[in-house]
């Protein structure tokens, strides 16, 4: 690499970081959406009677079955066709968020079922309603159990935010391609920088999740906590 290449690379980094910020915004949006809808779908699948729970299973099947790229196109161009004004950013959050909700729902469903019916029965036996039992007894335990598998989903959706470039969101991947387009000598280094960004974010995110897991570990179950060796 020549001195000019190096200069271009260094000059490109602030622009990359601004792009990365967009990825983080998409990430927070899609995780929040996926979390809320995911819990709802899981609760419906576990506790609802047949017609509603079958609907939830259908939802989960659709959003786990359709490729993410196709979902992005469906939502962005599809809504535009119906003259619904939607920005690429919002479309990306919705498409990736709904996809994630289907995956997250199965994490939560597994955790809720692992907590077990007997905890529900004990809560009902003191006079709690099902909603109270879910809120105060089932979910606090299920969410703790969800953290390890959820960290998988986090790592996965973090990287998926780069797919938003396909519908025109100017995020880090798109920015890297701009920079490469102006100077092909930067092709390798610029994507190495992008890779490093994501490696760092994956590390930071999983570290935070590990800290969360330790923070909410239930005493007496220490051996099952994060970072323990057997």
């Amino acid at each position: 690499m020549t001195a000019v290449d190096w200069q271009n690379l260094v000059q490109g980094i602030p622009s990359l970081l601004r792009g990365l910020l967009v990825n983080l915004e998409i990430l927070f949006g899609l995780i929040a959406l996926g979390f809320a809808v995911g819990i709802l779908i899981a609760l419906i699948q576990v506790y609802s009677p047949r017609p509603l729970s079958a609907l939830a299973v259908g939802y989960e099947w659709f959003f786990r079955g359709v490729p993410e790229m196709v979902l992005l196109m469906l939502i962005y161009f599809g809504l535009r066709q119906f003259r619904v004004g939607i920005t690429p950013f919002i479309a990306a959050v919705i498409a990736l968020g709904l996809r994630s909700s289907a995956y997250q729902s199965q994490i939560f469903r597994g955790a809720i079922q692992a907590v077990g019916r007997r905890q529900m029965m004990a809560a009902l036996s003191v006079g709690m309603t099902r909603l109270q039992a879910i809120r105060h007894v089932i979910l606090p335990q299920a969410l703790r159990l969800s953290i390890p598998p959820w960290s998988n989903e986090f790592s996965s959706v973090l990287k998926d935010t780069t797919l938003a470039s396909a519908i025109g969101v100017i995020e880090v991947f798109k920015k890297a391609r701009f920079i490469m387009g102006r100077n092909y000598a930067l092709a390798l280094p610029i994507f190495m920088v992008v890779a490093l960004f994501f490696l760092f974010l994956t590390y930071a995110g999983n570290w935070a999740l590990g800290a969360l897991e330790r923070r909410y570990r239930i005493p007496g179950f220490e051996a099952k906590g994060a970072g323990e060796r057997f």
Partner: protein
Amino acid sequence: MALLVVEDLHKRYGKEEVLRGVSFVLERGETKVIIGPSGTGKSTLLRCINRLTEPDRGRIWLNGVEVTSPRTNIYKIRAQIGFVFQDFNLFTHLTALDNVRLGLIRVKGMGKREATERAMRELERVGLGDKADAYPAQLSGGQQQRVSIARALAMDPKLILFDEPTSALDPELIGEVLQVMIELAEGGMTMLVVTHEMGFARSVADEIIFMEKGVIVEQGPPEVLFTNPRVPRTAEFLRKITEFYGESG
């Protein structure tokens, strides 16, 4: 008026008819013990009483209110009936104190301070005042079961149902739980207890109900059932269970 009236209760799971017409009455302050071979519907019967399991047929009254009526607020009924499970079923993510306090705050709408005081009193009553901050996994089985009794007591129940409360315990831990139950019975609590502890049944129960295959075979005061049962099958069962479990407790 009797505190609890159970009339012609039926329950079937698929092809198996677990309860086939069970009727009995429980007076205020009375302790009745239900015995019988496993798989005869004893646990199902208890769960039908507060409708944790919905009975197929039959009626139940608590204090004159029909529990089985669709118009009855079942949550209010359950708050008046304590339930002690075989495997404790403490809320695993909560301390002993919070286990006892949760129902007071969420169901009875008690303020936090008042609920804490009440919960502490109940924990002390079962001898666990010093374990208020312990989580279930940090307690022995006997201690967990005593917390679950405190959880039931805190709600001021009219009646407590015990579903084999000592069956999951190591033998040396059974005594501490039975002791608490004996004190409750002597204090006038109304209790319906499914158990294999014949010593407890004999010394504490006002009446023993012998159930088999979903029906009540015989019921009566312990001295009658143990010494002079009407039905030969009762005598046979009592002999077997006394040989197996002994009379301790």
